[in-house]
């Protein structure tokens, strides 16, 4: 087990290396350097800047300088914004982490509950209605859901704030988290329903009924774990979807999180910032995927780590 984790971690390193290398090269082939637009900088100042950032070293040298920094946890200075990239990410992270985590928790709890419930009442009217909603949910893009939520709850009803504001409170969280979670709720509910129906039709559920267990016991004790396996393997893609979704959500709701940092960095051609965020996201996604794989092994004893 420990060996498996170690091997997976080691295998992740080359992938991460390739990701960062490709991102680094892409950024460097961008037509237009970071200071192109603002020609107001006098030539000698620009020289100084380029020297400060080592921009005239050969690319390979720059790349390995950058990698060296990475290993030390230093993502370099930002070209466009005050401060170092690492600090910018650290400042933005709490916002993204909060809405991402809340959305994930909401999606899992509601999606699993609704999906199981629909499976138990398979083919009833309620099941059909719920599943029609779920189909709608996976068919409406997140950037359509978000404005609609704003339209209804912020503009028309005025119940909730339409955007983040520095004055705090937690009410601003509601709409972004909801918008981010809704499509995932729909996916997870559909998936749970399908796998729960399979599980409920299996021989061991029949055995459990013949043993006189109550429906509640059967669900909680016998059905839930095996029915969760497909849902668990969807967690990886779900995490990725929530990460990319948060770009849109943070833009729409003006939340100063990682997504917005990435978009403004890309807009401003802030090499180090964009690179830093991509490297950070790649590491995060890989780490989370590993966690999911390990969890899977706990739920399904038939998997053996080799």
């Amino acid at each position, binding site marked *: 087990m420990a060996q498996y984790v170690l091997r997976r971690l080691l295998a992740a390193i080359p992938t991460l290396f390739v990701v960062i290398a*490709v991102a680094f090269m892409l950024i460097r082939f961008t037509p237009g350097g970071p200071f192109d637009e603002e020609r107001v900088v006098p030539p000698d100042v620009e020289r100084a800047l380029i020297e400060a950032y080592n921009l005239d070293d050969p690319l390979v040298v720059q790349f390995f300088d950058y990698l060296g920094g990475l290993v030390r946890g230093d993502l370099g200075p930002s070209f466009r914004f005050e401060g170092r990239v690492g600090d910018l990410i650290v400042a933005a992270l709490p916002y993204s982490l909060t809405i991402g985590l809340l959305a994930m928790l909401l999606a899992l709890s509601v999606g699993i509950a609704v999906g199981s419930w629909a499976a138990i009442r398979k083919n009833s009217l309620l099941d059909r209605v719920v599943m029609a909603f779920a189909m709608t949910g996976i068919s409406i*893009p997140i950037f359509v859901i978000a404005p609609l939520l704003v*339209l209804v709850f912020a503009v028309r009803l005025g119940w909730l704030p339409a955007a983040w504001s520095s004055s705090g409170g937690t009410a601003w969280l509601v709409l972004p988290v909801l918008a981010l979670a809704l499509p995932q709720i729909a996916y997870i509910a559909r998936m749970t329903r399908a796998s729960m129906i399979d599980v409920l039709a299996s021989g061991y559920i029949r055995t459990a009924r013949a043993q006189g267990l109550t429906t509640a016991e059967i669900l909680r004790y016998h059905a839930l774990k095996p029915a969760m396996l497909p849902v668990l393997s969807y967690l990886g893609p779900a995490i990725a979807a929530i990460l990319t979704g948060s770009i849109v959500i943070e833009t729409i709701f003006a939340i100063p999180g990682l997504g917005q940092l990435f978009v403004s960095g890309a807009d401003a051609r802030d090499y180090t910032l964009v690179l830093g965020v991509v490297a950070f996201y790649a590491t995060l996604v890989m780490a989370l995927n590993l966690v999911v794989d390990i969890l899977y092994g706990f739920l399904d004893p038939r998997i053996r780590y080799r």
Partner: protein
Amino acid sequence: MRLLAGINRTVVVSGGILLAVTLASMVLPWLSPNDFATQDLDQRLAEPAARAMHWFGTDNVGRDLLVRSMQGIRVTLLVAIVASLVSLVIGVAWGAVAGYVGGRVDAFMMRAVDGLYAVPFLFFVILLMVVFDNSFLLIFVAIGAINWLDMARIVRGQTLSLREREFVKAARLMGVSTSGIILRHIAPNLLGVVIVYLTLTIPQAILVESFLSFLGLGVQEPSTSLGSLVDDGMQYVGTASWLILFPAALLAIILMCFNFLGDGLRDQLDVRQQE
């Protein structure tokens, strides 16, 4: 084609709606007196009305939203279908080779797919868009490059299990050549799955395209896509809500139809496989 025999209702209805929408997107702009690019500053933000055929109203520079929406559908569908075909070609080729050759080649090819799965691709696409200045062609490639991974996995799994199926072994025993086995025994049995996943890949591609367009990285003015239209409409959420409602609704309908179509086809295939 046997796949079409005894189709279920979901497939017929969703397929029918998709066909109708596609036809409308081609015919309506031609019937309408309006043009998707012509601005009419007297008619800015006109509400939906039958007058002057502005059935969906007009946008902030007085362009007819109906015609623009139809244009948007065409672009959206085109991007999605081409992107899906790209992912189909890469995915099927990759998956079939890995599955049929098996062994180390398979292990290596699938390791690569696993590795790519862990990469946050959309960030790369955004990066590409920024680097290459919103090239339209690039959208196809980028979306196709994201979506082929699933197709490859599915096709490989199918090929692998087909190769071990007894009818394939029987054909080998009989002396049927490798190309004969692939053509007569493997390919026809892959077809169903590939078609089903193709119909499920298209809505994925639409989502990515509209997502990029929404971020302002997709199709460039005056051409448009449903995603761009939603993006434009965002600014008028409170004041001219038709600008977001019509394109958003069309986008949702199209996505829903593709999802239902894929689901229906998959159910059909499952039934057949159980029989």
